[in-house]
């Protein structure tokens, strides 16, 4: 076990962590507004494939990222219109979105399988900082999307806690009728939160094809969208805790592909299960504590809102 391979493990932990964090932040936004979106995996796949296609066609990684975010938002808005606008069952619609997103991504990307990437987001150099031992390669030589994830985490946290918009958004997730009677548009708040969440899931997908594994293949997302959904619960719907969770879950993803170089006889399948086992443990803690205090889950999560006839 060399120093380089340990550093490599941490580098991968941070980059997988950022990948999961972006998608989880998006899911957190939607859930805070009261909409459960189980379509993260599908939105990530769409983000990944559109980013790769635009990269190949336009050779511009930033355009690729932008289009990936827009397609994620667009796909999420399908869920938004069905569940928020028409009051459809959120679980069913979200699951359909995953299947739709994965299928659509495979269809769009079938001519791009195995092609070399047209554009990549290369690691950012931070001058002297990047040369520091350990810290340099782990934190100061990452793809730009890693820093984007960090910025988004801070932004989401600030917006939710200390703006009128954040207050209204959280209110929409707790009690739609109270929000409505306070004069905010529940429909508008929920639709925008779902779309913004989709954009972040799309960015997360773009990170896969523009940096982590710069190529396109069907099934590239490999269940990471589901980990992001679990992460929101693990982080108790708080952006900071979700960030810490992202690093832990990112660590399990990083470790999975690096077990053999370490010479450890350990099934990677067990590691794949770890995020879900941890999430179940957190759910258990939440429900035990629920006897004394309310659950951290938004109270109106998953409930459609229709204003009563007046």
């Amino acid at each position, binding site marked *: 076990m060399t120093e380089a391979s340990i550093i490599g493990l941490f580098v991968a932990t941070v980059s997988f962590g950022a990948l999961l964090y972006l998608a989880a932040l998006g899911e957190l936004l939607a859930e805070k507004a009261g909409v459960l979106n189980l379509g993260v995996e599908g939105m990530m796949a769409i983000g990944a494939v559109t980013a790769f296609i635009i990269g190949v066609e336009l050779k511009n990684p930033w355009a690729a990222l932008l289009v990936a975010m827009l397609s994620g938002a667009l796909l999420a808005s399908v869920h938004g219109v069905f569940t928020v606008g028409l009051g459809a069952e959120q679980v069913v619609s979200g699951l359909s979105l995953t299947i739709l997103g994965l299928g659509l991504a495979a269809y769009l990307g079938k001519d791009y399988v195995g092609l070399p990437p047209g554009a990549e987001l290369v690691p950012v150099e931070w001058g002297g900082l990047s040369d520091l031992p350990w810290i340099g390669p782990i934190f100061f030589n990452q793809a730009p999307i890693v820093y984007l994830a960090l910025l988004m985490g801070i932004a989401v946290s600030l917006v939710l*806690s200390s703006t009128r918009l*954040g207050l*209204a958004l*959280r209110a929409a997730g707790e009690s739609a*009728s109270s929000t409505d*009677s*306070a*004069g905010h548009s529940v429909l508008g708040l929920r639709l925008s939160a779902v779309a913004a969440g989709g954009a972040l899931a799309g960015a997360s997908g773009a990170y896969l094809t523009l940096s982590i594994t710069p190529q396109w293949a069907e099934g590239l997302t490999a269940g990471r969208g589901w980990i992001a959904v679990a992460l929101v619960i693990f982080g108790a719907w708080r952006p900071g805790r979700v960030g810490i969770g992202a690093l832990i879950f990112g660590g399990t993803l990083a470790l999975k592909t690096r077990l053999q170089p370490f010479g450890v006889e350990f099934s990677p399948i067990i590691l794949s299960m770890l995020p879900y086992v941890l999430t179940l443990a957190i759910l258990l803690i939440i429900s035990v504590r629920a006897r004394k205090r309310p659950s951290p889950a938004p*109270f109106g999560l998953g409930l459609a809102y229709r204003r009563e006839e*007046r």
Partner: protein
Amino acid sequence: MNQAPFSINDSALAVELSDVWKSFPGVTANAGVNLSVRTGSIHALLGENGAGKSTLMNILAGVYRPDSGELRIHGQSQQFRNPADALSAGIGMVHQEFRLIPSFSVAENVILGSAPRVLRTKQVELKVSELAERFGLKVDPSQPLWQLSMGERQKVEILKILWRNAQVLILDEPTTVLTPSEVDELGEILTKMADDGRSIIFISHKLHEVSGICDEATVLRQGKTVASALPIESTDQRELAQLMVGTSASTADRPEPNTPGAPVLKLNGLSTLGDRGLEAFSNLSFQVNAGEIIGIAGVAGNGQRELADVIAGLRPSTSGSLLMNDADITDASPQFRFRSGLAYIPEDRLGVGLAPRLSITDNAILRVYRQQRRGPFILAEKALAYCKDIVQRFGVRSADFNGPIAALSGGNLQRLLVGRELDGQPSVIVASQPTRGLDVQGVKAIQELLIEQRNSGVAVIMISEDLDELLTIADRLLVMESGIIRGEFDPRTASRDAVGIAMLSDGQAMTEI
């Protein structure tokens, strides 16, 4: 008791509602109501359930639009399209059901909908607590709402309205969720707000509270104003009560009297707690005899619902005992009570009595599914035959036995529910608001069924808010108020006034009678 900041005669009117009409399908809730509230006064709006108080206040708060009538706020004619319009004209309402978010802090709840673009928590909390202190509302703005008592939550609702700088505050039966000491505190807070020049409309039917807190009163009855701007201090409580209940209505069509038999159900000192942990009724004792209908009269929320729950076994009693046919059933399960001959017609038909999404057949056999099965399986044909029998005997009009029961009309739902309960040949029937919301025909049918049961020797407890109904069909009438039996009357001879006063007054007022 309240010293208005200026002489009442000089002060301008904060609210003027004139000739307001509002109908809903089948009901005229407001039929030409007038209301004038002076600026800086606490104005009581009195009336029985269904007198049109809430409708009128929902019109003033912009929730409903009136069919006709004029609305003036501080002299200016207004038309509200929604609650936001009313709020911007300075009118806020505290509804009976609070619209608060448990996971939010007090301050967040107060400012929601009227918050600055960027929130600085400390600053906002300071502002909220300044506002709270000004009116003597003792709440900690940083505390999460779920930790607060009902009385404290009400203060948050009031703060919400004050935060938006409303000049007219409407409180819909604000004292029902409060303990007596909280009621006194509320009175002080309201006095402070009135001294500040704000006008308060206080909806109530508790006369003793009104006389301690309010300056003037308007009384509604059957959608009309029967007295307006009565000065509370110089008005007798009994006079107010008479205005609220009105004079005797016709008590036609009394059923033939029946000779009651032996006591079947005995309540000995029963007590229980309400949903909010406060005492719903205490030390209640009475007995019901075979072959009589005992009516429980009272304004909603005085322990009647809890009484029905306790007798049906759906709510534990905290003391006392309950005997049916001399067997102690205080702690028996609802299923055991049913099998020993207790039928229960709950107030909430579709929520408690029936399962809305199940079919008519499934609902019909809910109580007796054990008789419709072979092994673990329900026999569909047998169940259907049973259902058809009930439908036919009790005149339920329905086409589709396998369709969801929620598709039935209110009257048909109730017939099916009553039919199912009566089919077990009960010895006791507890019927809670059995005719509420039904059309004339439906009311008559249900009443006749209950009378028929009485004649065949069943003991019937009928809880109703409709005093005329009870005066017509009950053999004995008990009046419940604040969880206590305030009086027993013979419906054949009782005057509507006397019963009304017992329903509306507290114990102190009753000692004069």
